[in-house]
């Protein structure tokens, strides 16, 4: 192999072949009639993917073609040779190259460790609830005191390594609101019921069924987020225009959210049954949907709206509690009327439901923009 991989065309390369008798006239090796054609063939990949003559010129020069080589092809310089080559690339090949390249915006399969990570918060939540249920007295307190922080740590580990990773860092406000909402799901209903009944006179039991259901709902949340990312990516590759993409992404988003809502309701009904509750915790299910939407928006770089909406939901719930206690002041009895009318269990349903609807509208507008999918939230997840 006397030629290095970067092949430049000598029409008649002089090798070691003619070493024996230099004076004798060697048989002339005839090149093709059209030398540029051979050159085109040799650099067909370069020519096929070149977007303008200058790219061919740069590529030819990188392969050692100089102006003097170009002179052999009857051209003044590499640029004019490249122009001829660009003009002579078969036209019917180009569209296929155009369309083949962007068609596969690959979403890498998530590593197995990340799949397992999605199961970490459910596992920790399940263990906490099991410990709580199996012990009594101080053991329960210890289970809550250990399990709560453990769940927080599990979320801190799992969230940044999945498709729900917040782009550009999480917003502290959003995090604080989320913690408040989870605490409310755990203790809020009991507190409100006790307050409506005139208490609380004794420590009321936390709603462990809701906690378990929410913890278990983390896994389908990750799965749904990945489903959305992959689906949006596929639509991104297929659609020709931004409108087309939006039209395709909107039903996808709605379907994913509906699927997740079904998951959440199913899980919470199941855990409610296990906990022996009569009616399923729709408030907690709506909270799960709300949190998914907020996190989805954060993951795609929209950080303001989720913060505001979660804050609003917190304010609603906090206001309900405050109103019930405020009604005990003389002359303020009317404050508790709305909560008394709907009942304690309906407060989170209304608050989270309203928040989820607002976020769904926001997501339907924002997550169907192509620019939201320019970064890769789902790729390393």
């Amino acid at each position, binding site marked *: *192999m*006397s*030629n*290095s991989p970067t092949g*430049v065309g*000598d*029409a008649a390369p*002089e*090798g*070691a072949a003619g*070493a024996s008798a230099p004076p004798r006239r060697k048989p*002339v090796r005839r090149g093709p009639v059209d030398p540029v054609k051979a050159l085109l063939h040799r650099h067909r990949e*370069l020519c096929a*993917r070149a*977007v*303008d*003559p*200058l*790219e061919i*010129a*740069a*590529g030819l*020069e*990188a*392969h*050692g073609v*100089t*102006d*003097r080589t170009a*002179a*052999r092809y*009857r*051209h*003044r*310089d590499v*640029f004019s040779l490249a*122009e001829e080559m*660009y003009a002579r690339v078969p036209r019917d090949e*180009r569209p296929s190259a*155009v*369309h083949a*390249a*962007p068609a*596969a*915006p690959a979403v890498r399969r998530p590593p197995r460790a990340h799949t397992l990570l999605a199961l970490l918060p459910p596992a920790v939540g399940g263990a906490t609830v099991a410990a709580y249920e199996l012990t009594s007295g101080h053991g329960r307190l210890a289970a809550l005191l250990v399990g709560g922080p453990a769940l927080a740590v599990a979320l801190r580990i799992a969230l940044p390594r999945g498709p729900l990773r917040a782009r550009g860092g999480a917003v502290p406000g959003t995090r604080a609101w989320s913690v408040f909402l989870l605490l409310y799901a755990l203790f809020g209903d009991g507190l409100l019921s006790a307050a409506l009944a005139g208490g609380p006179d004794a420590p009321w039991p936390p709603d462990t069924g809701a906690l378990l259901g929410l913890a278990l709902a983390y896994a389908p949340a990750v799965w749904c987020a990945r489903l959305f990312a992959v689906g949006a990516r596929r639509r*991104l*590759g297929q*659609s*020709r225009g*931004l409108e*087309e*993409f939006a039209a395709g992404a909107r039903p996808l988003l709605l379907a994913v959210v509906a699927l997740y809502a079904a998951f959440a309701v199913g899980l919470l009904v199941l855990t409610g049954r296990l906990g022996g509750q009569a009616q399923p915790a729709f408030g907690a299910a709506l909270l799960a949907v709300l949190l998914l939407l907020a996190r989805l928006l954060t993951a795609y770089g929209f950080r303001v709206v989720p913060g505001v909406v979660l804050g609003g939901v917190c304010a609603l719930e906090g206001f309900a509690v405050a109103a019930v206690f405020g009604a005990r002041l003389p002359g303020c009895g009317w404050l508790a009327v709305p909560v008394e009318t709907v009942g304690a269990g309906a407060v989170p349903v209304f608050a989270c439901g309203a928040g989820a609807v607002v976020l769904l509208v926001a997501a339907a507008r924002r997550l169907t*923009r*192509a*620019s939201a*999918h*320019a*970064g*890769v939230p789902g*790729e390393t997840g």
Partner: protein
Amino acid sequence: MRIGLLTEGGYPYVTGEARLWCDRLVRGLGQHAFEVFALTRSAEQEQQGWTELPPQVHRVRTAPLWNADDGSGRGGSGRGGHGRGGHDSPGGGVRYGRRQRRRFAAHYGELAAAISTGAVGAVGDGSASASAEVADRFANALYGLAELARDEGGLALALRSETAVRALERACRAPGATRAAHDARVPDLLAVAAQVEQALRPLSLDWYEDEEGGLGSVDLCHAASGGCAALPGLLARHFFGVPLLVTEYGVQLRAHYLAGAGARADAPAPAAGASARALVAAFHGRLAGEVYRQAALITPGNTHARRWQEKCGAERAKLRTVYPGMAAGRFAEVGEAGADQADPGTLLWVGRIEPAKDLVGLLHAFAEVRKEEPNARLRIVGAPAHGEECDLYLAHCRALAAQLFPDEADGVHAVGDNPVSFEELGGPEAPELADAYAAGSVVVLSSVVEGFPVGLVEAMFCGRATVSTDAGAVVEVIGGTGLVVPPRNPKALADACVALLRDPERRERLGAAARARALELFTVEQNIAAFHALYLEIVSHCPVRRDVVDEDGDPLPFANPAETHVAGRWSTAPGTDGAAGPRFGQWLAARKGARGGPSWASAETGAETGAETGPEEVTEGGAEKGPEGAEGTAPVGAVAAAAVSEGEA
């Protein structure tokens, strides 16, 4: 004079391109005050820290070009322990209101329209008025965006927003868009928007102020490369009229094409299709065109870069070739000692061992040489190379050498040795580069692909006769003080080597001439002196016009005499030269067109007309043009021409 040195991924950092050159320039021009404005390419680079800065560097401002997402909360990294630096972040964009968004959309739409109509190749030829109009459109949009960023704050968010993508889509679907633009799909649009955002990050910097520390306060902007690095200079010229000098040792546009052709490891998220590449290439092409249009002077590092710049629309009158300077001091001893300490029958090859250097061809040529000169030896001194491919190639070359040349010994009782030796630089046989050159009597360069041949210049500094292949800037560097043969022609290479090995007198003559040429053209001093002269020339012809104010800040009328507004004459009298050059070129082109296919002889004359405008290129010209200088009767041209004609047959 206060000079704003604009670099991208380079100078003040320890790892960077053109770092040595900038360092020498700054150290060499102690009479000027330098303010370095550096754009960085990666976090690793910032962590490496800065080089030792001389006192004439008054201020360093750096800004990253690399972070994709978080722009804020990341100041102060990689300061390198210097107190006089500032770290500016273009990332943290401002969320625009409705009016700003409308303004942004209008400018961005213009920009998109400018890059989606017409190919870059049309710049400079063809429909001149149409391409000028497109260039104008691009420039106006660019400055519009810059003004918006200056008035309202960072563009980063807006450039990544849906507004931008939508404007891009509209431009691509508009009538008059190129076919590639018309075929763009959503991933392409996103890729283009991301790349444009990255390239336009310098717009969002807060460098464009009139007061101390801003680009408005310098007298001259010197961009160490084209492309993004020149963008701040372009804006300084737009906002304050600061003249811009652009130095390009490698043309950015070409580097962009080559990077696009390779594996795109750092490509933005959606796989970039052909349409995206076409649009991004058009963007970079237009940007390069605008930089060349606005620059007061452009200094390519060699003729190759110069041709690319001309192709991208640079005016010939603005081009001044300034060769890169190299430290000649370490070769002085070897160079002055002459060739007598060299082993007379030794051919020497020095470089990084990689396929582009065509060592296989060299070994075949050496086989030919050995038939004529049985005592000849070949030493291959390789710089430590990295990479699997290079290791494989080295192993392959060793195997080939062992096959071609059996070990041989002086007598029956002596231990044999191979006539081809592979050595590593820094090893016992060649501890220093100069030692390696000292041992060889003829230095051979067998590259197929070559940029600026540094090894050849080193050999010239050492006063060694050279045989090189005609690749890259070899001909322009050697300029008749060494033998040049076509690449991939071992026979011609062998003939030239044998000719030199047999003629010590000619070797000495060529070596002396080469050393004289190198000392005249490729020294650091030459480089610094050229830039010093260029600085003075620019400042005397297009100074910054600032309003003179008194102590209270009120403008002083008539502080600038009216004469300062009259355009001065360039010292090289472009009225004659600059006008005659192009006209002569046109005449030549017309003649060639009439004659049919242009031959390379006419390309040669074209190069001569190009050389006319550059005052530095006194001794320019192809080696084939014949002997110049010390080489009186040597058949340099004969060897090369014979080989070429053989090749053509």
